[in-house]
């Protein structure tokens, strides 16, 4: 690894030395289109050299050239124009439209640049600006709403993972995230959160490795959505491919770019709980002599005092009427209220005030340049952010080096190297228990002033929690369920660091004018260390390797990943006849990956407080969890694209893979793709309004293998029982009879641009079936195992994607562009294993599971549902509570459709753009509301009923809640349900009443996702080539949503099981200022 890096550095130094600068006369002028509208962004090149520039927004350009040289002007959709440099230093050029040769070039599979018109499949490219203008910590999140056919779910975990699904979930139990390829190098995007974390119990969201991609280095992103496009990448492309091309140096003047960005953020209060402020601690009227308070002689006067039940974490207690009672602070010797009764009122500050202002800096500098022999780019980015929770920080340093060298006319070598060092402190715990937001959203006393928790922690450094056992004779330093939240943040924090290198070296040799041979070696490797701490004095929670309930401990996980790709490919680009073109690639890929995971922890607590080391374990250190997954896949592939007269194209792809993860007898599989495009606008004359029209169709079948180590049975090693050594069968039975799975996908599309390219659309229909899936199916444990690897099941995804570009106004100084992306995916589980009707993907707290059910979309939410009568009315029991029935489908986590609308207004040098991101439909279950209303936290649990009486009054006194529904004999319900204790109308339910369906919500949203106001400085000081200043905002406004008090996107993390909210973090609204300078 070190040697590789050194080698690349040396190579790049060579490039730096090679830079030279040209000297000619300066020519300036303006470029305009046939309507005399100035054209910005026209590429201008001195023919035969690498000297080039671009026109600015007003069409102005300056370029150095000598008399007699030819300037070449190129612009997408316009005819290439050439002008010979004469004596004049001024040149005004008018370019003509050319729909016939609309040479939009995109980077496709295996790094092959193709004219977009020739593609027989959907490929949507966006520029680097789209992800670097408004920067977020995970580049994946920047794509939300900008690409059709993809569904991106950015949860609010600090540094957390993003779920990225292209054309729906296709694998029942496997990975559904797309492959990321950066400059031809596949990049691991493993989401290696623990299964406990994904299942909703304690854990941290460690993000996905694609977040290492630095938005400032991105030149363009092309998303290959279907199998026809991605087949050449082999099995790993089955979920689509995100091809990222990084910025490269260009021949010409050396350029220095500096970008500086500072962003501040605060939580969107619409995504956090609004507390009631009328009733204090407790679960109902069953404490002590008063019903609401413990009777304990606190001040030692021999008379029992009224004491708040500090040990209970709900708010169905006494009215907050200001009467004097002993609260949690009365038991804390260091507190001014020690042994004092204080007025019983709602906390002056609520957990909303716990969240801090966030701050994010992103500073980057890059130098690029080149000459006819070489190009290079060197970039450095520092990203630093402080999150919404106290003691949360993430710092990332990225160094990127890119270079090419023409060794001879025929021989080019190049390299790309990226080093990323990321350090994180204080990720938020996710899931049900031991998560701060579950304390705040589900289990809280509204009489607690959260700021006083901060004060006592800062004053004493001790774990004085509001939830201590003082009120029942215990110590104020004995927290029951919840630690002081500041203690949690400052003492029980985790840290992690990831050091990553990825890059490649390649050499290309032009065998003939039409045939190149390229070899490439690419590496992606990282080491990650995750450390979790639990300080002595904390409450017990599942911790460490054993997941035992532990009051203190240290846990470390080491992840070690390396992937090597060796590529050899032949590129063909020629004309067979004048009319028939042939381009293609044939190649060989050998991929070798090793993924090691080593997890160790203390057990039984820490001997010496504050020392976080394995050797500081009270009990013997439990056996570590080790896994090593190694895999090799050899692939042979060929792709040919045959074009006829720029009119008709045919693409053929074939790939043959051999995988070490499959059984020896069945480890090779072949698959293919066919696609075609017809530029019908070339056939239709006399339609001047139609600038471009294309029909395309494609069909592909792609095979897939499975993760390593799933063929041969092994045993599990269990921790010793005293002197006994223990072994066990693992829960999954392997299978040596497996065969590769297969995805079949058909897609068709229509693209057109009209009215001088002012209106354009791209429409796609696809149908994708993944069959014979490789998966560990659940079996009855009466078989001795809970899972068995089999080939089974089929999922179908079909849908539409629509991209629309409209340019309603295009004046000299003003233009308005609208870009719309819309997609609808319909997902259906066609079959499962044998007669199985349902596979539980994950079971969660609250009796909820996320499932794949035959005949239903993937990801149905199941749990207890309402009972309905024949007329569809909800049935209410004799006490006025909703009746429930077990195992009902409560919702579908798939959205009906997703869309994004970007509006861009440009006035002279000022650009205003904003993105509205929309999800329609999809359901989500909220455990936060399930327990939160059950403990009486939200405002409405202390509201008024239909009679205008407080719902918390006794039913006999006119209180309670009238649930809309009918009684079992069909009469309209008139019995108001109790709402004066936790077991009432908002109770978290049991088999017979208050179904889980009560807290299932529509996950639709409309969000003002991004807003950017950019100013390109026109008059620039000498030496500065370009400057722009932008004001950017993200997640400024959730225009519409149905999920109460939370962002519908805020799930546990990325993965197959979505549609469940527990301990959601609020959404950040951020505003930032960006300065970009180019020298």
């Amino acid at each position, binding site marked *: 690894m070190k040697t590789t890096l050194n080698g690349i550095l040396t190579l790049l130094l060579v490039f730096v030395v090679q830079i030279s600068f040209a000297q000619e006369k300066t020519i300036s002028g303006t470029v305009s289109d046939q309507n005399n509208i100035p054209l910005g962004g026209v590429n201008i090149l001195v023919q035969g050299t690498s000297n080039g520039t671009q026109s600015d927004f007003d069409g102005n350009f300056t370029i150095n050239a000598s008399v007699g040289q030819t300037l070449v002007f190129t612009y997408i959709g316009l005819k290439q124009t050439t002008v010979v440099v004469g004596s004049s230093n001024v040149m005004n050029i008018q370019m003509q439209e050319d729909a016939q040769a609309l040479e939009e070039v995109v980077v496709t599979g295996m790094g092959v640049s193709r004219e977009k018109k020739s593609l027989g499949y959907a490929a949507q490219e966006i520029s680097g600006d789209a992800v670097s203008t408004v920067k977020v910590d995970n580049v994946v999140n920047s794509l939300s709403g900008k690409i059709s056919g993809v569904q991106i779910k950015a949860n609010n975990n600090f540094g957390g993972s993003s779920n990225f699904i292209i054309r729906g979930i296709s694998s029942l139990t496997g990975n559904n995230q797309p492959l990321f390829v950066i400059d031809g190098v596949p990049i691991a995007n493993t989401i290696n959160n623990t299964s406990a974390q994904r299942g909703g119990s304690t854990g941290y969201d460690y993000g996905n490795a694609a977040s290492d991609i630095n938005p400032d280095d991105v030149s363009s992103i092309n998303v290959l959505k279907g199998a026809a496009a991605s087949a050449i990448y082999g099995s790993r492309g089955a979920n689509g491919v995100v091809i990222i091309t990084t910025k490269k140096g260009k021949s010409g003047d050396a350029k220095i770019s500096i970008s500086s960005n500072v962003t501040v953020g605060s939580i969107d209060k619409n995504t956090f709980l609004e507390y009631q402020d009328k009733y204090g601690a407790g679960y109902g009227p*069953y404490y002590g002599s008063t019903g609401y308070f413990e009777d304990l002689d606190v001040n030692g006067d021999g008379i029992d005092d009224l004491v708040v039940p500090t040990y209970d974490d709900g708010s169905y207690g006494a009215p907050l009427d200001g009467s004097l009672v002993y609260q949690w602070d009365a038991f804390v010797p260091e507190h001014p209220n020690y042994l004092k009764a204080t007025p019983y009122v709602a906390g002056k500050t609520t957990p909303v005030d716990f969240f801090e202002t966030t701050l994010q800096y992103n500073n980057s500098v890059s130098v690029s340049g080149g000459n006819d022999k070489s190009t290079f780019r060197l970039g450095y980015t520092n990203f630093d952010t402080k999150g919404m929770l106290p003691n949360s920080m993430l710092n990332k340093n990225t160094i990127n080096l890119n270079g090419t060298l023409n060794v001879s006319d025929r021989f080019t070598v190049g390299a790309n190297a990226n080093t990323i060092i990321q350090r994180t402190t204080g990720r938020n715990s996710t899931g049900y228990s031991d998560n701060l937001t579950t304390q705040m959203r589900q289990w809280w006393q509204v009489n607690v002033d959260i700021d006083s928790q901060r004060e006592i922690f800062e004053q004493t450094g001790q774990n004085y929690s509001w939830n201590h056992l003082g009120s029942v004779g215990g110590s104020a330093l004995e927290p029951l369920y919840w630690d002081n939240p500041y203690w949690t943040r400052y003492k029980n924090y985790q840290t992690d660091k990831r050091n990553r290198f990825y890059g490649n070296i390649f050499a290309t040799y032009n065998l*003939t004018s039409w045939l190149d041979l390229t070899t490439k070696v690419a590496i992606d490797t990282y080491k990650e260390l995750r450390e979790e701490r639990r300080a002595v004095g904390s409450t*017990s929670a599942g911790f460490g390797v*054993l997941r035992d309930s532990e009051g203190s401990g240290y846990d470390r996980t080491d992840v070690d990943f390396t992937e090597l790709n060796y590529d050899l490919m032949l590129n063909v680009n020629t004309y067979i006849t004048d009319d028939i073109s042939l381009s293609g690639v044939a190649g*060989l890929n050998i991929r070798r990956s090793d993924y090691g995971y080593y997890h160790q922890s203390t057990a039984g607590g820490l001997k010496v407080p504050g020392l976080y080391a394995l050797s500081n374990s009270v009990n013997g250190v439990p056996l570590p969890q080790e896994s090593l997954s190694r895999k090799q896949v050899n692939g*042979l592939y060929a792709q040919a694209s045959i074009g006829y007269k720029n009119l008709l194209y045919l693409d053929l792809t074939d790939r043959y893979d051999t995988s070490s*993860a499959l059984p020896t007898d069945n480890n090779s599989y072949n698959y293919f793709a066919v696609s075609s495009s017809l530029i019908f606008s070339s056939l239709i004359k006399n339609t001047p309004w139609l600038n471009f029209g294309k029909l395309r169709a494609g069909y592909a079948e792609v095979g897939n293998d499975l993760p390593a180590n799933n063929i041969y049975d092994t045993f599990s090693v269990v*921790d010793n029982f005293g002197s006994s050594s223990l072994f066990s069968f693992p829960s999954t039975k392997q299978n040596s009879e497996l065969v590769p799975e297969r995805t079949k996908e058909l897609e068709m599309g229509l693209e057109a641009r009209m009215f001088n390219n002012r209106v354009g659309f791209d429409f796609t229909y696809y149908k994708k079936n993944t069959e014979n899936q490789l998966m560990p199916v659940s079996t009855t444990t009466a078989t001795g195992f809970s899972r068995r690897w089999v080939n089974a099941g089929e999922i179908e995804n079909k849908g539409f994607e629509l991209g629309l570009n409209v340019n309603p106004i295009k004046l000299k100084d003003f233009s308005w562009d609208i870009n719309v992306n819309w997609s609808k995916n319909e997902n259906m589980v066609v079959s499962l294993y044998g007669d199985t*009707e349902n596979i539980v993907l994950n079971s969660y707290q609250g009796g909820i599971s996320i499932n794949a059910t035959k005949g239903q979309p993937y990801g149905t939410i199941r749990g207890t549902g309402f009972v309905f009568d024949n007329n569809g009315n909800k049935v209410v029991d004799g006490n006025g509570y909703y009746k429930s029935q077990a*195992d009902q489908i409560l919702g579908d986590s798939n959205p009906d459709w997703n869309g994004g609308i970007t509006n861009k207004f440009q006035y002279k040098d000022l650009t205003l753009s904003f993105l509205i991101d929309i999800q329609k439909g999809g359901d989500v279950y909220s455990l936060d509301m399930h327990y939160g209303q059950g403990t009486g936290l939200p405002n409405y649990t202390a509201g008024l009923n239909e009679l205008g009486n407080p719902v918390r009054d006794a039913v006999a006194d006119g209180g309670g809640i009238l649930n809309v529904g009918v009684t079992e004999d069909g009469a309209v319900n008139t019995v108001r349900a109790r709402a004066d204790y936790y077991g009432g109308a908002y109770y978290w339910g049991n088999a017979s009443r208050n179904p889980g369906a009560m807290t299932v919500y529509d996950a639709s949203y409309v969000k003002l996702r991004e807003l950017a106001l950019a100013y390109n400085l026109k008059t620039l000081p000498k030496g500065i080539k370009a400057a722009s200043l932008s004001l950017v905002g993200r997640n400024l406004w959730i225009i519409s949503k149905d999920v109460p008090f939370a962002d519908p996107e805020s799930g546990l993390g990325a993965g197959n099981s979505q549609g469940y909210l527990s301990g959601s973090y609020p959404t950040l609204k951020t505003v930032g200022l960006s300065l970009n300078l180019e020298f």
Partner: protein
Amino acid sequence: MKKYIVLFSAFFALASCEVDESLNIDQKSPTSVPASGLFTNAARNFFDQMNGAHHYRLYAQYWAQTTYPETSQYIMTGLQDNIWSSLYSGVLQDLKGAREIIAIEGAANSKNQLAIIEMLEVYAFSVLVDTYGNVPYSEALDPLNPSPKYDDAAEIYTDILSRLDGAISNMGAGAGFEASQDPIYGGDMNLWKKAANSLKLRLAMRLADINPAVAQQKATEAATGVITSNAENFGINYLSSAPNTNPLWVTLVQSGRNDYVAANTMVDAMNSLNDPRLDYYFELKDGAYKGGIYGDANAASGFSAVSDELKNPALKGNLITASEVSFLLAEAAARGFNVTGSAETHYSNGVTTSIENWGGTESDATTYLAQSSVAYNTAAGDWKTKIGTQKWIAMYNNNFEGWTTYRLFDYPVLNAAPGMSIQDIPTRILYPISEATLNGPALNSAISAIGGNNKTTKLFWDKF
């Protein structure tokens, strides 16, 4: 040009050859293990499961719950699947694997080892039957058969009793598993044989109401070789530190929670009998033993807590005790089965060995038994009432037998949870929810065979 093509083709030919298949061999998990490691793991899992099934402590009304009383209101969510999977895949699969490896290993003591495994398999299947009713048995534990049929509970009993006979007769002189791998009896085959006979006695007595002839025959056979002292109790020796502690410690101490208090049912019964075991079972609350209302939410601060004895991480996890055996023999005698000793003697032994096992003295027991409310001849009710009540008190830390005592004898008199009736007390556990989706047709025929998948469906031996 040509030479490149040749070169290229050669490279292709070279590279397209086989991948390195050894990469797919897991480097971090063993492919073969000693049988004893599987046996010990299965045994430990079994004892953990039986000792950790705290819901039976609620169903038997030994304990009540504090803030969250759902389980004591017989909400079974989670329990059903948990018991099933821990017995089948956590216990029986590992035992099956151990049996297969022993056959290959062919060690000198393999006959004894196989007999021990057979005895544990019989025990585990008896628990499955006693929990659910009909369960997969003859087609179980075959990973290639994803839909094993459910066998008739009575037929399973017949088969496991005969397997147990075989195991007992195969238990001979010499070693079983080496001492370090046998945390129950340290390799002592004599004790294993006593435990196997005691299990046989228990299973025989389960059948007493529905098949008295078989019950008498098997009980009589077993009675001569059973556990007779607390030193011989069939229990696992837990250790003082996690993860090898008694599951009670995990629930009561390690969790840091206060979810349980004494139940009024148990405390009231023991208070009225001046039971010396109260000091070992519960903590005093304001100078008295006070139980929380069974089935209701109780403030943890208001009632007697579970005793420190139960909070000892190394508390031995007993599943068959001398006390239980004595009560089984008392029942056999009371039913007129041909066993040595009178019902009264066995009853008194049951009480005495129980008191002694908790740390009480023989004189404590004598004093206790001297009370007319306790003495076998003077205590109220018929033999079922007397034996039922005293066995129930003695089975305090043998939770499954505590609940089963009620199921078999319909004594002691339990309390109805608020809003419920006595008829709502479960007599079985519902089938796992997952079985409906994973093995639906087989489950459905089992449900109709046992008379409904209800908590109060009576098992085949539960005639009265």
